[in-house]
């Protein structure tokens, strides 16, 4: 290939080094060399650890954040960790983040001893205190707040920074602490996967499906609104093998040329938040061309169930011809649809129209052939099968209409729908997508589930919607490390509304916040408002490995150990495997584990006995429901799940009908439309034109290879490569703002402003810009969550950070 002038060859965050710049100069188009980033002191400046033992050992441990939970081998020589490698026998091989943990352990930036704030909050002035002083102070003040205001005055955050059993893991010791404390104000819904969970609950009756180890069996991959090449990089080998060995196709739907899109057979750009319209466009093609799996749909979904509109029914076939195009409001209220049922409460109470006898019969009648179309009069009332209604809704989403809404090429909509229907098994890689962290993200998820169901891909090896999961996500269970108690329920705070609720003291004043393993001020939206809300909080305690953006605002910070310095258990929250994490070295400095800290606090608060037990006794309790023994785990990671794994293999679903419910009774009962219909996001330029005059660009958040949420931003090997927050912007949008590639820029909206460096690239849609989510573990001026909306998704109450608008300008004033 001859050199071309429009190619940029880059490293270190797209900034070529001077040498590369000269050497590969014929190929560089206007890229600016930018050095810098964080000036971190050197590794060797760190004081030597105490020696745990002599000689060389390899210890097993695992990467604990909410990623792939890769098994790690910690190579220790004379009590010093000398190397970290991925375990070559594990199902996935550890990435740069996992093996760079050696730099986390010996980082000079670690918190070394407990400290008390000596300046204003956020000012980063500290006074060293003893553990005894720190723990006694916290316990005394917690007890006083408890006496004066009760448990509702507390908020506790324990997220995925250290997502393990004796820390903040699912059913972990940290949650058990707050239970035995008597409870605290709960956070309602969640930032990550609320809309996936609701979509699955609405359509499949709950559950999640993950089949990354089975991707080799898939023949078509639709990576929809997420970037598995980054977020599932360890499993991508299976996808690549399916392509190489079986000719599987990979199609990516994303507003930007993500790492996955770049490797795809086809890349389809759509406007953020319009995914459900694309799904309906594809559904229209499937139904219009008869490309759906008739037998599957008839047997395993409620598509044939008879439904009536209002009391007397509706002339659907006639009246729907006059319905407005997709994206415009329907003249009917879908909430007024009612399934015809027999007067009993069984799962077989639903009724279909039997084409053989031309009569209504119970849905599960043997030998009947349920109609999937048509209109039927029963006792003077008009009924249609559910699928007929879906057909009428989807018919408004012609390729041209979908193009107008989404920006997707007209031709692509039908061709991808046909390919998807024709390739079996076909997988939609959903993976808690950024596309579901949008204003109507639950509808996006339901669109995915509809497509998988209509094509008969659910309950099939290598087919279906690949969400995320692992052992716990796929129905596995573990116990808490200590017994729980019953607590009175306390009104909660919606996860996206934390700032507003703290500022306005809703639903009641919060007096103390305790944070472990959570980037509270880099993940929760509208972050400046949360910082303002902290003024109403008397005591803010943060325990972490580093002085994070969040820790900087604390009143007391407690230094936490890394995963090499403590024994722990990682019980399959995002991996199928359960893993023992061996202690490799003695704790450095005065760092202590989350487990030790919570146990010491529990003792001081009078409920420490159940916590103050040997680690292995706690592990045995946790493992009891899994059937896996600690002895097995001493040998290596154990996968308690069937292999291969086929989610929903028996094709029975925990819905009222036991079927996939295209017509969702769950949604109807919650007061939402029971059938899929696209709704525009509220914060979008084509919806809010006055807002668009000030903030015309749609902001989406992306993930990079260098971080998991807010974790890993303190690893110097990673910051050497990824130095700064980078905003991706299209050349057309950059040009009108006078922004050059590599320029320092300011990104802002009514919620705040942040600094970034501009990556001018045609690999993102015009009108859309992208920032790295979670960035700001080190420098809060680069924290994208400052810009994120605190509106919640109406159905799931989840995060809508990808339905956001901003403006961008040159300069670094924040």
């Amino acid at each position: 290939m001859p050199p071309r002038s429009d190619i940029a060859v880059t490293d270190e965050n797209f900034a070529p080094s001077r040498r590369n710049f000269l050497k590969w100069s014929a190929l560089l188009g206007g890229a600016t060399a930018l050095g810098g980033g964080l000036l971190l002191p050197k590794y060797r400046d760190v004081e030597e650890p105490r020696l745990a033992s002599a000689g060389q050992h390899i210890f097993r441990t695992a990467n604990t954040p909410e990623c792939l939970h890769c098994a790690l081998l910690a190579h220790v020589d004379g009590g010093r960790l000398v190397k970290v490698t991925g375990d070559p026998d594990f199902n996935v091989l550890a990435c740069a983040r996992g093996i760079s943990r050696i730099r986390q352990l010996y980082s000079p930036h670690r918190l070394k001893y407990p400290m008390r704030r000596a300046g204003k909050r956020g000012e980063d002035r500290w006074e060293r205190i003893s553990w005894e002083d720190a723990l006694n102070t916290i316990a005394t003040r917690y007890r006083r707040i408890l006496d004066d205001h009760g448990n509702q005055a507390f908020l506790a955050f324990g997220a995925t920074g250290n997502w393990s059993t004796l820390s903040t893991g699912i059913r972990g010791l940290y949650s058990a602490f707050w239970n035995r404390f008597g409870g605290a104000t709960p956070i309602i819904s969640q930032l990550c996967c609320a809309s996936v969970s609701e979509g699955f609950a609405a359509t499949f009756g709950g559950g999640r499906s993950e089949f990354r180890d089975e991707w080799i069996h898939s023949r078509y991959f639709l990576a929809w609104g997420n970037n598995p090449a980054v977020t599932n990089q360890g499993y991508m080998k299976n996808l690549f093998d399916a392509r190489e060995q079986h000719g599987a196709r990979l199609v990516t739907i994303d507003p930007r040329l993500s790492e996955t899109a770049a490797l795809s057979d086809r890349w389809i750009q759509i406007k953020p938040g319009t995914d459900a319209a694309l799904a309906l466009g594809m559904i229209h093609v499937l139904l219009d061309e008869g490309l759906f799996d008739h037998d599957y749909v008839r047997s395993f979904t409620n598509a044939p169930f008879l439904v009536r509109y209002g009391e007397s029914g509706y002339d659907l076939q006639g009246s729907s011809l006059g319905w407005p195009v997709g994206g415009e409001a329907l003249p009917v209220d879908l909430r007024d649809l009612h399934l015809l049922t027999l007067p009993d409460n069984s799962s077989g109470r639903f009724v279909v129209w039997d084409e053989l006898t031309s009569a209504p019969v119970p849905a599960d009648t043997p030998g009947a052939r349920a109609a999937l179309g048509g209109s039927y009069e029963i006792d003077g009332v008009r009924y249609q099968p559910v699928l007929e209604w879906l057909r009428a809704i989807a018919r408004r989403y012609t390729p041209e209409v979908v193009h107008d809404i989404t920006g997707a090429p007209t031709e692509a909509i039908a061709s991808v729908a046909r390919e998807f229907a024709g390739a079996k098994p076909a997988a939609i890689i959903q993976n808690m997508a950024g596309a579901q962290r949008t204003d109507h993200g639950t509808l996006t998820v339901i669109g995915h589930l509809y497509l998988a169901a209509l094509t008969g891909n659910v309950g099939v090896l290598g087919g279906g919607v690949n969400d995320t999961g692992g052992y716990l996500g796929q129905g596995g269970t573990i116990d808490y490390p200590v017994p729980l108690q019953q607590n009175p329920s306390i009104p909660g705070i919606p996860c996206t509304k934390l700032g507003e609720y703290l500022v306005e003291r809703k639903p009641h004043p919060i007096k103390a916040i305790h944070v472990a393993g959570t980037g509270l001020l880099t993940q929760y939206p509208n972050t400046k408002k949360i910082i303002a809300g902290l003024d109403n909080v008397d005591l803010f305690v943060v325990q972490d490995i580093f002085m994070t953006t969040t820790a900087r605002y604390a009143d007391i910070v407690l230094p936490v150990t890394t995963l090499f310095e403590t024994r722990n258990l990682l019980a399959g929250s995002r991996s199928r495997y359960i893993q023992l994490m061996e202690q490799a070295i003695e704790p450095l400095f005065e760092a202590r584990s989350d487990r030790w800290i919570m146990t010491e606090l529990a003792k001081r608060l009078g409920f420490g006995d159940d916590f103050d037990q040997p680690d292995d006794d706690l592990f045995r309790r946790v493992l009891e429901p899994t059937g896996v023994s600690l002895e097995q785990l001493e040998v290596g990671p154990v996968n308690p799940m069937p292999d291969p794994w086929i989610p929903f293999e028996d094709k029975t679903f925990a819905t009222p009908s036991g079927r996939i419910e295209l017509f969702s009774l769950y949604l109807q009962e919650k007061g939402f439309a029971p059938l899929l219909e696209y709704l525009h996001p509220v914060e979008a330029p084509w919806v809010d034109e006055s807002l668009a005059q000030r903030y015309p660009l749609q902001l989406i958040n992306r993930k990079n290879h260098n971080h998991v949420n807010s974790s890993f931003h303190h690893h110097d090997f990673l910051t050497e490569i990824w130095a700064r927050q980078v905003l991706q912007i299209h050349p057309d949008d950059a040009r009108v703002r006078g922004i050059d590639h590599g320029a320092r820029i300011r990104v802002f909206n009514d919620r705040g402003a942040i600094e970034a460096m501009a990556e001018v690239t045609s690999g993102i849609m015009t009108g859309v810009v992208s920032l790295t989510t979670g960035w700001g573990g080190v420098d809060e001026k680069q924290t994208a969550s400052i810009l994120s909306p605190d509106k919640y998704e109406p159905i799931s109450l989840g995060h809508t950070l990808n339905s956001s608008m901003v403006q961008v300008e040159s300069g670094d004033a924040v």
Partner: protein
Amino acid sequence: MTTKQHAFFFDANRCTGCRTCEIACKVENGVEMGPRWRKVRTVQGDEGGPFMYHVSMSCNHCEVPVCAEACPSGAIEKRPDGIVVVDQSKCIGARLCAWACPYDAPQFSDETGKMEKCNFCSHRIDAGTGGPACAEACPTKALQWGQLEDIAARDGVTAQFGPLPEAEITKPAIRFIPLRPVHS
């Protein structure tokens, strides 16, 4: 001409740009901040639609090591197995190797004042404990290692693609599979 030549293989269709190879190299060889024996570069452009791919590259242990020819102190040697190594005791930090190398492989260490670069993890090769840490750490097997004659015989490989310098200059011991185009 040697009978053996250790070599790298890189498939752009399997590289996600995760940089695990880079970090594995640093961790295995104790490379401090600054020098980067292996680098993943991102190539982006817009011709027939936007495209992007990654290239992971270290020293290519060239059949014609122009770095060794340029070294004034005879510090760079090509071993019989093809691995090109820098003898730290002979290096005077003249940096001429860096100017000669078209791949930007030799790295100057501020700490030692000398040049250093990928040695194909020769300590592992010599001890029989494995191959280069970078290739062995690659989660997707985009980066692999082996003997040049085997790798050069694989389907679809080329010594040259995209923006890489002319392979004829140094005859690098690496073969690539270029990215298949994306249809947008």
